[in-house]
């Protein structure tokens, strides 16, 4: 039986912020900083193992209980859903989901059913369902900004950080959909079976994350 606590980090920007956070707690993160191609890393002198995964996989690993704790963006949580505890807003990776389209245009004009391009169909569907509005959703894998420009869609729902990409392509935010930031998630069984250790780690992370408003 694995009595270690396994933490899954979303690779990339969230990972580096999370490693800074682990540093502040006082964990030895040398392995994490010199990871090479390894995917499972340990924190010396602690019963903690860190795994690196793509955002959606962090949720999958935590949901199935093979990882106890995960660090993942709210965007992925909103798109994928799942059963786990979402205990902390870590405060980093802040951005938002927004509805955008051609500058000067108006998304809601006219009777016609609108077409929305997005990498996040579930988020988009939930957003328009809450407005009681029928829309056609087209799933796009790459740069969503292209879709309204070439006439595939009336608008896009996408992650907006600074808005520079939108601006450079003549697009504008019509409406904010939801704020996003990195979250700490915990498997529902780990929280109970390893309560002491997991609570301790959650407390340390809470005390050391940027956002003191939690």
């Amino acid at each position, binding site marked *: *039986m694995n009595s270690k606590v396994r933490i899954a980090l979303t690779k990339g920007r969230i990972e580096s912020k999370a490693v800074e956070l682990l540093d502040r707690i006082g964990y030895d993160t040398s392995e994490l900083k010199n990871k090479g191609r390894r995917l499972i890393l340990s924190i010396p002198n602690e019963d903690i193992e860190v795994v690196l995964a793509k955002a959606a996989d962090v949720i*999958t690993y935590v*949901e*199935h*209980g*093979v990882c106890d704790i995960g660090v993942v963006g709210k965007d992925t949580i909103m798109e994928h859903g799942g*059963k*786990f*505890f*979402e*205990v*902390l*807003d870590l405060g980093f990776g802040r951005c938002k989901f927004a509805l955008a389209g051609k500058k000067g245009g108006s998304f809601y004009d006219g009777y016609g059913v609108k077409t929305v391009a997005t990498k996040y169909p579930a988020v988009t569907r939930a957003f328009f369902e809450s407005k009681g509005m029928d829309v056609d959703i087209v799933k796009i894998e790459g740069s969503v900004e292209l879709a309204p420009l070439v006439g595939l869609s009336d608008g896009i729902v996408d992650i907006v950080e600074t808005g520079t990409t939108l601006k450079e392509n003549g697009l504008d935010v019509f409406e904010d959909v939801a704020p996003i930031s990195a979250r700490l998630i*915990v*498997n*529902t*069984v*780990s*929280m*109970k*079976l390893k*309560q002491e250790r997991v609570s301790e780690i959650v407390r340390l992370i809470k005390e050391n994350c940027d956002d003191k408003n*939690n």
Partner: protein
Amino acid sequence: MKRYDLLTPEGTRDLLFEECAAKRAVTEGLTDLFESYGYSEVMTPGLEFFDVFNGKVRYFPQETMYKLVDGKNRLMVLRPDNTMPIARLAATRLRGEQLPLKLFYNQSIFVVNPKNSGRDDEFTQSGIEILGGKSGAADIEALSLAAKALAVCDEDYRLEIGDNGFFRELIPQLGADEELAESIREFIETKNYPALGEIMSGYDSKAAAAIGKLPELFGGAEVFAEAEKYMFTDSLRERLRELKALYDSICGICPADRIRVDLGLVHKKNYYTGILFRGYVQGYGRPVLSGGRYDKLLGDFGREAAAIGFAVNVEAAAKVLYARGVGVPAPDVLVHGEQGAETAALKHCGELISEGLTVYHSLFECPKCAAEYAKAHNIRRIDIVSADGSVKSEEVRQ
């Protein structure tokens, strides 16, 4: 057109040998337990009318049910739950039976899961239902059986109890509309402290403080003292006292460190009306047991009665057992009849079985092939039966 003749549908699978043994060990362990406490077995059909699960209150979203139509074009479902058919049974064929009724079952349910989620769409549940009876005593009985059922799967289990009555009593005092109340419930269930805190910071009341605290109130006996501070009405305090009394009774029967409390158990789409409980074991990322008190459900079917019950996810428990390794015992003896000794060989099999041994009757052409089979399958003795009825026993060197 693509043919699917070599696959099982997603979410289902064939179980082989050791997997079957693991599953059977769980169901047999649980059946023995339930029977030893005088429970009676029931079986309900795998096919039910959609209406059974689509009554006044809809506990199951229709997109999670497998549906089909019968010969009269009526909508049917593959049984998505075991408790509701038993409530139907209690209100119909068992109508004349005096309460309390103690029933148990071992049968599959079917759930449509999101694709590629790695979850079972078909899985067996073993569980009990106590219909009627003295509530307090029934709660203790159900919980102590739940603890014993978990011990069948894993000695190092946790049984967690809660009561969704705290939430149901607190939420009207907040004056939140249905939509907001649902968001709050969801944030409590997912222990989403930041989102819950943000909503509650907009209120300045004892009810809001208590609701904001609910998801943090989990752990051992210390939880009750902490919860006490937030219970500001007599009925809330009474509810907490009752839960504490129940917790103490269970701790008197089972090892206390196995029993936990979580006042943040407020799960949706269930018919539970009070005490709720869940069971966890090492090696499985979701609860293996869940149950609770449902005092309104039988009334939905026309027979008012309080009830409590729980179900064990047998597949989950079997997976845990399988991962630890379960042995399937090899037969004791391989019996091979030579040409013309087929009847004598089978007769010899019968004799060995009556002596308490297990046998494998060889259908191989030659004794050599039979010997190879025995060796490969850990059978330690071969009996060769000759046409004259004589038997020659050989040890198999492993």
